[in-house]
């Protein structure tokens, strides 16, 4: 494995609100190697989008308390000032958002928005920037880009707008691309188009990709590694095969069991995770998942309620935040009880 291209160390983000301090991300750490695809999976409120925004420097320091390290290719992004990060953003790293309609300015032609993205970062003529924009639109499969470049966002369908967003994100050939729920707002048939497009473009450009999603099907399609988040923490990290076929954290196991699948035995009743996701203002003690965990009684004593488990290695390159993992380790070392 090559040296990590992006390294996130003990990232913590909290927001002070009237109701209390919201610990949106509470100690999240992971690495991404150059050219690979990492999927960050989690439900709403798990901290996955805030993690992405922190990496991109999109959180205002006035409203958010951020600590930890985000090291991109050797430099700590959290230590940069606003001007420095603005120079990186859109050039070396870029982001695609869930809703392309609210990410494109409705009053400007898509061509203007694309050329602006070029000219902010590079000293090129208007003509040159426009040619780049046309090339970018062609690359994402927009037909007749020479004409479409003068369209306004409302003239395009949802799938087309998302293609424009991808074109804009890739126009300066960033080394890191973060896609936050890029296909969630789209229909399944269009979702399939966009997924294939992103996989294909990544193959061509070698961009490092972080995809943030709640859809385990999309992850299975795209990712090399998976990072499962719950309650602001990374609770499991591993290769896609580790996480899907050998999930170690009961939350991951529950998540995989609760998804209705086209290829499963339909008459089996779904096996949902009981209860509701935790409030980030008032997190449960010990392991954040313990109130919903079905395997708590396998852990000796009331460790789950009192002590937060560490992210421990299950196998090489596969970690999980669960006392069961520690227990298995202990049993291996000291023998069974």
């Amino acid at each position, binding site marked *: 494995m090559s040296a990590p291209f992006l390294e996130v160390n003990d990232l913590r983000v909290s927001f002070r609100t009237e109701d209390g301090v919201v610990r949106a991300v509470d100690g999240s750490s992971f690495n991404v190697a150059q050219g690979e695809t990492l999927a960050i999976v989690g439900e709403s409120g798990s901290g996955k989008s805030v993690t992405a925004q922190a990496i991109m420097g999109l959180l205002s320091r006035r409203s958010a308390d951020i600590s930890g390290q985000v090291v991109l290719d050797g430099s700590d992004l959290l230590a940069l000032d606003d001007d420095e990060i603005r120079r990186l953003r859109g050039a070396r790293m870029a982001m695609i958002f869930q809703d392309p309609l609210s990410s494109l300015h409705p009053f400007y032609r898509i061509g203007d928005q694309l050329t602006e993205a070029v000219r902010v970062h590079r000293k090129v003529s208007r003509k040159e920037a426009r040619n780049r924009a046309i090339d970018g639109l062609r690359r994402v499969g927009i*037909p007749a880009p020479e004409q479409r470049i003068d369209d306004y966002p409302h003239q395009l*369908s949802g799938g087309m707008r998302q293609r424009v967003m991808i074109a804009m994100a890739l126009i300066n050939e960033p080394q890191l691309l973060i896609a936050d729920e890029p296909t969630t707002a789209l229909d399944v048939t269009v979702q399939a188009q966009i997924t294939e497009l992103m996989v294909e473009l990544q193959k061509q450009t070698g961009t490092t990709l972080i995809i943030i999603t709640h859809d385990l099907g999309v992850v299975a399609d795209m990712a090399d590694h998976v990072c499962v988040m719950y309650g602001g923490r990374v609770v499991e990290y591993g290769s896609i095969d580790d996480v899907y076929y050998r999930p170690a954290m009961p939350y991951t196991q529950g998540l995989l069991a609760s998804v209705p699948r086209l290829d499963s035995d339909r008459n089996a009743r779904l096996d949902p995770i009981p209860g*509701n996701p935790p409030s980030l203002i008032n997190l449960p003690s010990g392991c954040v998942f313990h109130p919903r965990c079905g395997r708590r009684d396998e852990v000796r004593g009331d460790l789950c309620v009192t002590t937060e488990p560490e992210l421990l290695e299950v196998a090489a390159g596969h970690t999980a935040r669960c006392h069961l993992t520690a227990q298995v380790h202990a049993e291996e070392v000291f023998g069974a009880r």
Partner: protein
Amino acid sequence: MPADSERVLDVRDLQVYFPVRSRGVFPRTIGQIKAVDGVSLHVEAGKTLGLVGESGCGKSTTGRAILRLTQPTAGSVELNGTDITNLSRRQLRPLRREAQMIFQDPYNALNPRQTIGSIIAAPFRIQGVEPPGGVRTAVRELLDRVGLNPEHVNRYPNEFSGGQRQRIGIARAIALRPKLIICDEPVSALDVSIQAQILNLLQDLQDDFGVSYLFIAHDLAVVRQIADRVAVMYLGHIVESSSREELYKRPLHPYTHALLSAVPIPDPEAQTQRERIVLGGDLPSPLNPPSGCVFHTRCFVAQDRCRTEVPIMRDMGQGHLVACHFPIEEQRIGEVIHGPDSGLTAPLEPEPGYFSESITDLGAVGTTRLDSANSTDEGI
């Protein structure tokens, strides 16, 4: 007809057109959006019909028109044998207790200024029904039934999570023990772990009360979990309908094939082995739908006939209905998605040109894709 007596809902040739008016002082009607264009469906007592389609296909409008929340342009809706298409609001009111609705967005479907007790008691109040034991007891029982704490009766919707709010919406819908509930995307706004809870709850309620569902959704995996029969909609038309087993094992309409193959399976190995049909282009505008078969502009087996002749819904055996001139009867795609032993088999060898080559073909987006279909003529 004796068979009809078991039908809770019988919809025939439903049309819902929305007029498009020109701007200005004297607006004229300059066109019509054919949101629903000749939909026929029925729901049997105690069963679930899944209505599947992408956004803009008219599935929600169908649901709303059935409850007369939107006025149908033509066609008939029979609820428990009574034709309700042309009843006045007053005549309709007593029938409302027979049919209820669960909405997609549990945040907007509940009045934020009412306690959940008041929200769930509303059906009793409006219909003037006095449940045995009184409204208060009934509300507490309903809360308990849908898995909420009856002590929370005086709380407001903002104190509940999305999944809990959907439970409140369900409690309100089942309060009067309706025969039919129209569920419009009831789980699509919920987190994965909560979706399964709500689907199980809906199934339990059906087992207990024998309620019928018209389950409107875009997620084929979710529909497969809950429906007995499935109808697939595209641009205002039902293109295929059959029993659940049939539809997922032996889809006939090319659109159903494409939809099924587009649903990602949360299994990395299975995903790499699956053959995909990626449809080019987007849904055409219902303002100006394509001639002939509405799907022909995106279809991978379309031929000349599809452009001119509207396909008629026909029965391919065992109540498997399809509206297509060239239904795909071979199992070649179906097997990839749903192998003989429900395991995932090796991918079948696709005919050249049969599946669209996603990226290279995207240049053809928005145009008719008949060229890629020509090479498959002999195969059909």
